[in-house]
């Protein structure tokens, strides 16, 4: 049973990390634009 909850937790974790990574790239580009 615990493995199912683990898979959900890990799946959500990876999803949020990828989402955060994507947004971070956009933030970095915006920051570079601002500096220019």
């Amino acid at each position: 049973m615990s493995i199912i909850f683990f898979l959900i937790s890990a799946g959500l974790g990876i999803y949020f990390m990828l989402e955060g990574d994507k947004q971070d790239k956009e933030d970095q580009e915006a920051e570079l634009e601002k500096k220019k």
Partner: protein
Amino acid sequence: MRDIVFFLFFLPFVYLAFRVPFLGICAWIWTVLLVPKNMLFGFAADLRFTYILAIVTIISLVINRDPFLRKPGGTLYVLMLLFLLQSSISNMFSIGIPVLGWAVWSDFFKAMMLVTFILMMLNTRNRIETFIKLMLVGAGFNIVFEALKFLVTVGSYRIPGILNSMLTDNNLFALGVLMLLPLFIYITPTLKTKNLRLAFLGFSGLCAVCVIGTFSRGGFIGLLIVGWRLLQKSKKKILFGFIGIVFASGAIFVAADGWKDRMETIDDAKSDASFLGRTTAWKIATLVALDRPLIGGGQDSVQTFQVWDYYYREIDKLDFLGLANAYRNRPKAAHSIYFQVLGDAGIPGILLFLGILFTGYRMSKRLSKHAHQDWIRGLASAINTMLLAYMVSGALLSMAYYDVLYAMLAVLICIDRLNKQDIENLTRFTSPDKDNN
């Protein structure tokens, strides 16, 4: 098999941490709160996942360029470092069992490392919210698992706490979960899909179930405080109150008589053996601090038998308090964050600890009222409620070195910096001098 599945799912976390440094600390907090060790029995059980992620994060920080990187700093951070220093000095002259003291110190040191990385890297809204999401899905694993066990067994399963973590007993787990509840409420509306928002709303409800399922009296008092604070701040008071009542009354109904009997003992705490043990531990911690005011007894020393036995001889010095004592041959943990620090690190230690809590509370209060952006006000308010729960329920629990507390204080420093940056930008754009130039 289970170990292989875990290992395969752990690899993407390591890969992402290696590629993007701030994701390293997100994965780090996920592992800390998930406590994978408890579900593994094969080759992966001996792996030190947090250690691996810490090393990967450091390497990633060195090889990747991060435009948002900042130096760690701020009054609150300095207070935390001084508290770590004071704890180190106390341990060097410990009167307890040094190995036990240094084990506590080691966890506290790791928490401070995490704090330092947070201050260096979490410098945008996205990064902060990603970190909080990972914290919540890591803890969510244990919250959902334990709450469901409690509900499925119709209350006969008492949630015992999480092995191999800082929340090893029911009371500590109750407070740990309570501290996360305001963060669940904060993060839910920021999620992109309706399904995720519903899932997180369910997690919030299961947090309340978990607290009730621990049968912790301190936890229950904390739950009332957090529930009241969240209700006060909620824009949909009736809906929030209704959902809260449904979850709490459902869990209390499931827990039935045993739970009610336990809570009724709050009224006659003075004659309760567990309460007497606590007050005796508080007296011993006070006597240690009076005897060694500058350094205390060292971390975890008060509950070692020789220290307890030695200071128990002088316990009549505190008879004026009018509280009976527990047995001499049964040493107990301090059972209060305040007396724990007083006994461990002496007067300077408790002053630094109170300074950390006071500064954090004031900063979160100020930001929750006066920050420029809505999300900063919302997050500061959640941290403020979390601190309030910690300061009230923590008065009955030994949890002074809890890593989530220090991590969230670091997040508080980060949002304070972002708020100051906002103010600077606003003044720069609206300043008449600028226009004239």
